[in-house]
């Protein structure tokens, strides 16, 4: 009790010249950081952004988040919309892309999906992996990776223009496990959907 009184006295002494006013900027910092903490824990905001000082604490950062845009054609065929098509199709500037990845909201994803749906689109083939990359020294389980890439390569490849009937936009992230538990790709937040008539 005596010790706490002494500490309080010291605190009062250090604040004496200006009162509590010098603490206004830090009160603002703590308020914003606490709000960021809640949004990052309960929502989709990356801990690295939003003023909560969660950088260099978690791997859930913008470079480890990815946008996936899937189109569905008239016959129900599925296409992956390649990242190099995004700027032209959705006016997706790097700053806008960062904002979507940092905090994916249903409104932002729906808006992107609607923009892409309104345009004619020609499927493009993604860059293929070279054998050297597939045999990366970090990768002890080449087979599962090969299966994943076979699935994606099957999904693209047409040269004809396609009128999309439906567009899905989602944000995914790499979840890095401890030890040999591997790296998993999972969806975070809502999926934006736009449908044509």
């Amino acid at each position, binding site marked *: 009790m005596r010790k706490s009184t002494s*500490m309080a006295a*010291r*605190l009062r002494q*250090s*604040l004496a*010249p*200006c009162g509590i*006013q*010098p603490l*206004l*900027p*830090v009160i603002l*910092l703590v308020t914003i*950081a606490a709000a960021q*903490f809640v949004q990052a824990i309960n929502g989709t905001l990356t801990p*690295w*952004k939003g*003023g*909560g*000082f*969660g*950088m*260099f*604490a*978690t*791997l859930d950062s*913008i470079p*480890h988040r*990815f946008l996936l845009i899937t189109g569905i054609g008239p016959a129900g065929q599925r296409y992956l919309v390649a990242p190099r098509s995004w700027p032209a199709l959705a006016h997706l500037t790097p*700053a806008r892309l*960062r*904002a979507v990845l*940092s*905090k994916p909201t249903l409104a932002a994803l729906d808006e992107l999906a609607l923009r892409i749906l309104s345009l004619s689109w020609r499927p493009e083939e*993604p860059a293929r*992996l070279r054998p050297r990359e597939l045999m*990366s*020294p*970090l*990768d*002890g*389980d080449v087979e*599962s*990776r090969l*299966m*994943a*890439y076979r*699935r*994606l390569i099957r999904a693209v490849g047409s040269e004809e223009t396609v009128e999309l009937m439906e567009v899905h936009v989602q944000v995914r*992230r*790499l979840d*890095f496990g*401890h*030890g*040999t*538990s*591997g*790296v*998993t*790709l999972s969806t975070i937040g809502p999926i934006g959907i736009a449908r044509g008539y």
Partner: protein
Amino acid sequence: MIAVAAAARVRLLNLVSSQAELDLILRVTALLVLLHARTSAGLNALLRIECLVVLAFPGLLTNPRMWILLTATLLIGNVPQWSTIDNHQYLIGYWVLACALALRSAAPMAYLRVSARALVAAVFGFAVLWKVLAGEYLDGTFFYWTFFMDARLSRIAALLAGQSVTDITTAAGALRMFGEWGADGTTVGVRQVPGVWTAAIVAAWLGLTLEAGVAVSHLLPRVSMYRIRHLLLSVFVGCTYFFLPVVGFAFVLTVLGMAECGGHDLRRRARYVVLLLLIQLTTVPWQALLVATE
């Protein structure tokens, strides 16, 4: 050589003492904003002009309206992009606000000293909180994967793993491609590199200990903590940003440390001026000197 070093030391002490303490802090803050603050694309040029005006006209340096204008320019530009700007942009904003409010108070330097210390304590407190609660820091997972995925550390990773830099960057590129194109829910198996795990755990605990030390020493109101808190803050800035060069963050923390110095502590203030110059060297690609096969 010794005579030149002694002369430089005298000149440095003269620099920090000849300037009024408040002027020095406001000048380096204006320099900080000029070099490292960001606002919206449309306001960036205006922000730079405001800083140049503050630096060029000594009468405006201590004018609170000028600092309120700087705060408003940062605020208007950064609120719409709150979810993408870096954390040190927030900290720069809080510090410029502190300068504006301090200049309206009866004792500006006492105001800034308290604000600077409280801001450092809060920043490091939240940084420690995240590291403890995030769930992937304490066991080394964060640094293990950062060594491989962060291009700034790829040479260190190559050296630790006994692999070529090309292998490391190729593996990181392949994982990014997996992120863009892989099927949902797919898991890619990985082989452990024990040497990197050890380094990751050591780096994690060293970082956490240092950050917790800075937070606690700034929170405790003990006078005897004065030296320790300055020592820990300087070591943190000097070591951390040498490996991960975020010059803007290092700059704002150094300015806060400088503002915390006691009125007569010229030597420590001079050391912070030297640190400000040294952190500019963090952008030098020293990792190229590491012997790692390409």
